[in-house]
C-alpha cells in the first residue's frame, strides 16, 4: 500500500522536477546572452524587423554574419508575410520590413507619417523562379510564355503537343499527360510567376497576378520544398519554384526576345537592372516595376524581387544606427555574396547595388 502511494507520487514529482530543470536551463541561457551584450563592438541593442517569408534564408545568413560582427546586437526578423510586415512597419511595431512587393501609394502616406518624412526602399533579394520539369528522356526544354500559360491553364495537356514540339526541334517528346504543379499555399512566388504570365502572354493567361494560384485541377503541394518533391517524384510534371531550391531538376529556358534564356542569378540581376523605376517616388525609394517583357539579351524575367523598407530618419539614435548598419551590410558586396552562397539568390547588379548603397548611407537619427 505504502509502496504504491510512493509510486503514485513519483510520476508528478518527476514531471515537476523536469519542468523546474527546463525553467532553470532557459533562464541560464538568457542571462548568458545578456552578458555578451556588455562586450559588444559598435552596434548594440535589439533590431526588430519582419515581413516576406521569401527572404527567410537570406535574412538568416545576413543576421548570423552581422550579429557576428556586432556581438551586442540582436536582430529579430519575423516571418509575417509581406502584407503584415509592411503594416507593422507603418504602425511602428517594427524598425524595418521585408516585402515582396514595393509599398503602395496608400501605404506610402502612412509610412511617411510613421517616419516623419521619407522612407528608404531598396531591392535586397533577387531570385530566379525556375520552371522545372520532370519528363523521362527530356533534358532540355524551350518554351515561350504563351505555351507555359496554356500548360498551367490546362489548355495543353500532352507533352508531344505541337506547340511544344515546334519550339524544341531535335527533342523527342513522349505521348504523356502533362501534370502542372502549383503551390497549395499562398505565396509571393506564385504572384511573381502569374505576373510574368499575365504580362507576357495576356491573351493566354487572363488571371491577374495573385498570391493564390487561380487555376484548379492541377497537382498542388505545400511550400517550395513540397513542389520540388512532387516534381522529382512524378514523371510528366512541370512546376515553378525558387531556382535555388530545385536541385537537380531540369529547368525550362524561357523565350526572351528571340532567344531562349535559362534561369541564372546573372540573368535575374540583369532584369532588375534594366527594369524602370516607378516614377513619382522620392530619391530614397527604388521601387522597380519588373519588366517581364524585356527583350534584353541574357535577361531572365521570371524573378522574385524582394525589398527592404525603413525610414530615412529615426527619432531614436540607436535604432537609426542599427537599421543603417544592417541595411548597409545587406546591400554591400559582402552581404550579397553571403545571401548568394547561403540562400542561392542573385547578387544585385553593380549599378543597382551602388544606388542602394548610396541610399542606405543617408539613414540618420533626427
Amino acid at each position: 500500500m505504502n509502496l504504491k502511494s510512493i509510486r503514485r507520487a513519483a510520476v508528478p514529482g518527476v514531471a515537476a522536477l523536469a519542468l523546474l530543470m527546463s525553467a532553470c536551463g532557459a533562464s541560464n541561457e538568457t542571462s548568458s546572452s545578456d552578458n555578451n551584450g556588455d562586450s559588444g563592438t559598435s552596434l548594440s541593442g535589439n533590431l526588430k524587423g519582419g515581413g516576406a517569408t521569401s527572404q527567410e534564408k537570406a535574412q538568416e545568413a545576413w543576421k548570423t554574419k552581422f550579429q557576428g560582427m556586432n556581438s551586442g546586437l540582436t536582430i529579430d526578423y519575423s516571418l509575417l508575410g509581406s502584407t503584415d510586415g509592411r503594416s507593422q512597419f507603418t504602425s511602428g511595431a517594427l524598425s524595418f520590413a521585408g516585402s515582396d512587393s514595393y509599398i503602395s501609394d496608400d501605404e506610402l502616406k502612412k509610412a511617411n507619417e510613421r517616419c516623419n518624412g521619407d522612407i528608404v526602399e531598396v531591392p535586397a533579394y533577387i531570385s530566379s523562379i525556375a520552371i522545372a520539369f520532370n519528363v523521362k528522356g527530356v533534358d532540355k526544354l524551350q518554351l515561350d510564355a504563351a505555351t507555359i500559360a496554356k500548360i498551367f491553364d490546362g489548355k495543353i495537356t500532352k507533352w508531344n503537343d505541337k506547340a511544344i514540339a515546334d519550339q524544341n526541334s531535335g527533342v523527342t517528346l513522349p505521348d504523356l499527360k502533362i501534370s502542372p504543379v502549383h503551390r497549395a499555399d499562398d505565396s509571393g512566388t506564385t504572384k511573381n510567376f502569374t505576373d510574368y504570365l499575365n504580362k507576357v502572354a495576356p491573351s493566354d493567361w487572363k488571371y491577374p497576378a495573385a498570391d493564390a494560384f487561380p487555376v484548379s485541377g492541377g497537382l498542388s503541394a505545400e511550400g517550395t520544398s513540397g513542389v520540388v518533391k512532387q516534381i522529382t517524384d512524378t514523371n510528366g510534371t512541370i512546376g515553378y519554384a525558387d531556382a535555388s531550391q530545385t536541385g537537380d531538376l531540369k529547368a525550362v529556358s524561357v523565350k526572351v526576345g528571340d532567344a531562349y534564356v535559362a534561369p541564372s542569378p546573372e540573368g535575374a540581376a540583369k532584369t532588375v537592372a534594366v527594369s524602370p523605376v516607378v516614377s513619382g517616388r522620392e530619391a530614397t525609394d527604388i521601387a522597380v516595376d519588373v519588366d517581364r517583357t524585356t527583350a534584353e539579351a541574357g535577361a531572365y524575367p521570371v524573378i522574385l524581387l524582394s525589398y527592404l523598407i525603413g525610414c530615412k530618419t529615426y527619432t531614436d539614435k540607436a535604432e537609426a544606427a542599427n537599421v543603417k548598419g544592417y541595411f548597409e551590410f545587406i546591400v554591400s558586396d559582402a552581404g550579397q555574396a553571403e545571401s548568394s552562397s547561403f540562400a542561392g539568390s542573385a547578387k544585385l547588379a553593380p549599378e543597382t547595388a551602388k544606388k542602394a548603397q548610396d541610399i542606405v548611407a543617408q539613414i540618420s537619427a533626427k
Partner: protein
Amino acid sequence: MQGRTDVTARTAEAEDAPASWASVRGGVGDRIFSGAALLAGLTILAALAGVFIFLALKGATGFTKAADVYGPHASSFLGYVGPLLVGTFTASAIALVIAVPLAFGIALVISHYAPRWIAAPVAYVIDLLAAVPSVVYGLWGAFYLAQKLVPMHVWLHEHLGPIPLIGKLFGEPSPAGRTLLTAGIVLAIMILPIITAITREVFSRTPRLHQEAALALGATRWEMIRMTVFPYSRSGMVSAVMLGLGRALGETMAVTMVLSVGFNISWNIIATASPTSIAANIALKYKERSADLLNVLVATGLVLFLMTFLVNFIARWIVGRSERRMAR
C-alpha cells in the same frame, strides 16, 4: 450541481452536530474535492465558450466580405466554404468507412478471440499508433504512401470506373496519388487507435453472466457476441466512432501535406486535385494572408466548430432513441 448542494447541506449539518462516522478533516477534504471537480468541469465549459466567442467575434465579418476576398475560386462565403465542407466530410467519411470495421474487429479479437499472450501486445501496439505525431503521418502519407498507391488508383479506375454510380467515385486517377482516398486512408490509420481502445474497453465490460447465458443456450461465439456484446456496448461504440470522427474532421497537418488541393467539387475521390478540409485550408492560407482573409478563415473555423457539434448531437440522439427502444 446536485453534488454541490449536497455537500453544503452536509457541512451545515456537520457544524451543528458532527455525525459519529465523519471526522471534521474529512469534511474539509470533501469540500475541497467537490470544489476542484466543479472547477475542472467549469473550466472545460469556459474554454469551449471562449473558443466559440472568439470565433464568432473574429469571424463575424468574414461572412460578408467583398467578393474579391474569397477569390480566385469563389465570390461569396458559401462558395468559399462549400467545397471545403465537402472535402472535410468526404475525407472523414472515407476514413470512417475504412477504420470502423477494422477497429471493431481488432477490439473483438483483443477482448474475445485472441489468447491473452497475443491480445496484450496487439493492444499495446495499436495504442502506440496514437502516440505518433500527425506531422509524421503527413510526411509518410505524402512522400511514401501516395506514390505506392498510384497503381491502386489506376486499378480502381480501370476495374470499378465502368460500373454505373460507384464508378463515379473512381474517375480519372491522379498521377501522384495525393488524393482524397489517400488522405482518407492516412486519417483512418490515425483514428484507428482511439476507436479500438474505447470499443475494446466496452466490449470487455459486457457482463460475464450474459455471455455465459447465451453460450449455455447453444449460441456460437459469434452469436453470443451479436446477442450480448453488441447490444450492451452500442452507446460506447457510437462514442468511440464520434471521437474518431472528431479527430478526422479536425485533422490538419496530415491532410495539408497529403492532399493535392483543388476547388471543383466532384464525385471522383481519386482526382488529381480535390477540395481540401477546412482545417487544412486554414493551415495553408494562414501564413501569407490579408487581414480580410483572416476573418474569412476564422469564419470557416466557426462553421467547422458548429458542424462538429451538430454531427455529435445527431449521433447522440440516434443512440439515445435506440436505447430507449431497447429498454422498452
